[in-house]
């Protein structure tokens, strides 16, 4: 009889204290934004002022939800692409999949810059090219619009994310479901419509809901493209309110309290959906996976997918590099449009070097610290019998639905309000902490999955041989989950490197990062310098992604 009992031993007092401390800390940092919002918004008339008297706030909420509609669209397109990539044997399939990964990792800001270069109403290359046609008299595209913002998100991030998120669900689908239908007499398209799509519909729906929640926290694209023409979303409006002199925290908190209620409501729905979805994937756990081999059309499919990757990755990157060498961003028709001055200026700027160092310290610190902290929390959640496990499990998931900008803002509030924390003000440590907290949900989740996969006997053997719980954790558990530690390090590293909205309130001149410097250049119309930083940041991301792939990064299977 093998009774797998997670509470397999009574914890000595020291571990009880340490474990309790860890749980308490998790509860504290995850609940902080909620408390701050509640305290901040509790004043009378704030809601009235925030929503009735201020039409910009109302429209910000409206635009946020309008723009979040990209999630269902991207879920559908992403599903089609993922299905083709995974289930059909097409030329260059592996390269395409890796390209999706790189696209997923690349920061949004540089990509936005290159789309400005292409679709700007005044100097966008595509607009100009089309206007040279005899019957086009006004620029057909405008990047500074709802359509422009949607386009950048869908092409550069939403679709690749969906491809990656939906991949595992498609892989887990037992092919025999489809084969039975074929034997019963359905054609391949009927099978897709009647069997594949309905079985995977819950997965697509959960993907869409998750994407919807994540969309509501988008910041830099909206700031760069929407703000100049008066299109505000929740996060850019919060940024605006809080960076006034003096900052209007009350209005920001009122706005946040509304968003928080909506987000939590959607998040609870999402939790319900995933619970049901887990059941569906267990049913289909056949590992019976086969690719279709088809004739000619595979070339057409491959070409179409390469076009998608070209639009979302190669083309923007190429334009970004071009932009970084331009005298005047977007103006190709002046006498000598290209120069290396931008690179010389940026690389010679002392702010660049300090930002680079700050970025690497932040990303490395958050990656290392995160990997260790998440593994401890996940281990306690999975294996210990500590009281309050279930609550902490739920709380560890909370940051997932809280927008980064709100996290940053509440952390700033806490630092300013409490004398104990004031030493953190503007320090790189505060940035590292906030990034670790922001990535807590995905880190702990991935860790939990991988710790559950370790047979508990491996740990029990070590205990019986004479190794205490700590010793067992460090010499048995950690080495066994080492591949996932690498994956989590990479994810947190890259997230911290590209993050803007979470850290923007917390950074000072001395803790300025590459991403923030890039944002600062971009919003102060120094798009050339911003493009230079964009190229550098992208290069770092690609190198890290390649290295991680080398060292056996297996994120695909885990997400």
């Amino acid at each position: 009889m093998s009774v797998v009992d997670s509470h397999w031993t009574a914890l000595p007092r020291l571990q009880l204290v340490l474990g309790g401390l860890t749980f308490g800390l998790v509860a504290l940092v995850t609940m902080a934004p909620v408390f701050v919002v509640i305290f901040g918004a509790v004043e009378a008339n704030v809601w009235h002022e925030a929503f009735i008297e201020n039409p910009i706030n109302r429209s910000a909420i409206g635009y946020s939800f309008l723009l979040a509609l990209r999630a269902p669209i991207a879920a559908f397109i992403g599903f089609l692409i993922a299905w083709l990539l995974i289930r059909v044997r097409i030329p260059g399939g592996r390269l395409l999949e890796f390209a999706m990964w790189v696209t997923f990792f690349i920061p949004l800001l540089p990509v936005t810059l290159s789309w400005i270069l292409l679709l700007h109403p005044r100097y966008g290359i595509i607009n100009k090219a089309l206007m040279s046609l005899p019957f086009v008299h006004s620029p057909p595209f405008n990047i500074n619009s709802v359509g422009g913002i949607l386009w950048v998100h869908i092409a550069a991030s939403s679709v690749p994310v969906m491809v990656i998120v939906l991949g595992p669900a498609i892989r887990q689908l037992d092919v025999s479901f489809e084969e039975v239908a074929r034997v019963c007499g359905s054609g391949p398209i009927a099978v897709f419509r009647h069997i594949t799509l309905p079985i995977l519909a819950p997965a697509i729906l959960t993907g869409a809901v998750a994407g919807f929640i994540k969309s509501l926290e988008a910041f830099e694209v909206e700031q760069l493209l929407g703000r100049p023409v008066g299109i505000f979303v929740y996060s850019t409006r919060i940024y605006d309110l809080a960076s006034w002199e003096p900052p209007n925290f009350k209005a920001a908190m009122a706005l946040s309290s509304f968003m928080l209620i909506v987000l939590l409501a959607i998040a609870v729905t999402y939790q319900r959906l995933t619970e049901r979805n887990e059941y569906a994937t267990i049913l289909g756990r056949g590992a019976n996976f086969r690719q279709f081999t088809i004739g000619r059309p595979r070339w057409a499919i491959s070409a179409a997918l390469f076009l998608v990757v070209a639009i979302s990755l190669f083309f923007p990157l190429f334009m970004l590099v071009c932009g970084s060498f331009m005298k005047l961003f977007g103006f190709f028709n002046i006498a000598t449009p290209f120069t290396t001055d931008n690179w010389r200026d940026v690389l010679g700027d002392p702010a660049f070097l300090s930002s680079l160092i700050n970025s690497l310290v932040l990303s490395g610190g958050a990656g290392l610290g995160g990997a260790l902290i998440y593994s401890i929390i996940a281990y306690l959640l999975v294996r210990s019998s500590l009281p309050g496990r279930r609550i902490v499990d739920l709380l560890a998931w909370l940051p997932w639905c809280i927008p980064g900008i709100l996290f940053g803002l509440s952390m700033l509030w806490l630092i300013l309000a409490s004398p104990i924390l004031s030493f953190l003000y503007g320090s790189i440590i505060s940035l590292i902490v906030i990034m670790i907290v922001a990535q807590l949900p995905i880190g702990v989740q991935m860790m939990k999955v991988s710790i559950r996969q370790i047979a508990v006997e491996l740990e029990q053997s070590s205990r019986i041989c004479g190794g205490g719980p700590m010793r067992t954790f460090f010499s048995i558990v950690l080495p066994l989950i080492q591949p996932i530690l690498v994956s989590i390090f990479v994810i947190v590293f890259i997230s911290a490197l590209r993050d803007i909205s979470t850290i923007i309130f917390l950074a000072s001149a001395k803790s300025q990062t590459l991403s923030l410097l890039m944002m600062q250049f971009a919003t102060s119309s120094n798009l050339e310098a911003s493009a230079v930083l964009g190229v550098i940041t992208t290069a770092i991301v690609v190198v890290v992604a390649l290295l991680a792939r080398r060292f056996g990064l297996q994120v695909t299977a885990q997400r």
Partner: protein
Amino acid sequence: MSALTNSNAAQPSPEPVLRVRNLSKIYRGARAVDSVSFDVYAGTVLTLLGPSGCGKSTTLRLIAGLEQPDAGEIWIHGRLVASAARNVMLPPEQRRVGLVFQSYAVWPHMTVTANIGYPLKLRRVDRNVVASKVSEMIRLVKLEGLGDRMPAELSGGQQQRVALARALVYEPELLLLDEPLSNLDSALRKEMCTQLKDIQTRLATTVVYVTHDQEEAMSLSNFIAVMNHGVVEQLGSPDRVYEQPATVFVRDFVGRTIRLRGVIEGNADRVRVRIGNQVIRTAGVDPDTFSSGVAVEVSMRPEDVKLVKEQDRSSNCIAGHISELSYYGDRFEFTVRIEGTDEQVAISADKRQHASVGDRVLLSIDETHLKIWPL
């Protein structure tokens, strides 16, 4: 049940290596282990034998410290390691026991040498001593030349031996084995069983062995505790458990049994049982226990029943007809229907037997090995 190891077990040492008293563990309201008590003396093997879910593995896990008892106490070498009443619960690492899991649990990220050496490293043993002890262990379990292999490169039997070496290397006071052979194929199981016994005798290790396989239990142990529904039904030497089963469960679980229903026929000196229209004699059954006319069940081991020809008829025979017959190469398996009843008896017979379905046969019963159970 508080049957302790019986007196012929008494080793010179008065103090048992393991003492378990009234041990209980409750899972979701059900008593997985129900007031179990036994002692294990130095150098002996006690086997917990029973079907899956009988509580044998849970008992072992309680001893190892992987579960906390809800009642009862456990002493190892006179040291109280767990007591529900006194709120004592030593963690596994402080109990100085060794454990081999059914799944081996050989750490996949360490070589064979590192796996075996790990317990010594924990004890901060000098590196040279570790090396020599590990190679001694590797020789003992016959894994010479495989020290640098990773577990994934080993067969199931080899991993098994790594797990055993790892559990023995630090000379634990008590070795716990949780169905260690059940994942091996049957030929390998026999071989490992012999090796295990050999190693146990050579090191004079004290062992608690958990299995559902009675052959393993018979060949390895000095004592067997047959468990069912969390309770020890009988505790005794292998031959005693086999020959003198204390309960119906033990009788049917350990070994094969032939059972026939009948009625007691009164007789002053010997108990006779009428089966259909035939009567068989018993020996060694106290006539006072059963009164005439009582319905009973007669049980015997298949090896105590012989198929005989009419001319070889002995005094204690019962007749029947062959209703089924299967050929197994080395033997025949017959199903015999006893005359005048619906009772069927399955027995095996010599391969040179020439019988066919429908033949009338006689079953000669060894009266001394016959047992009578009230219905």
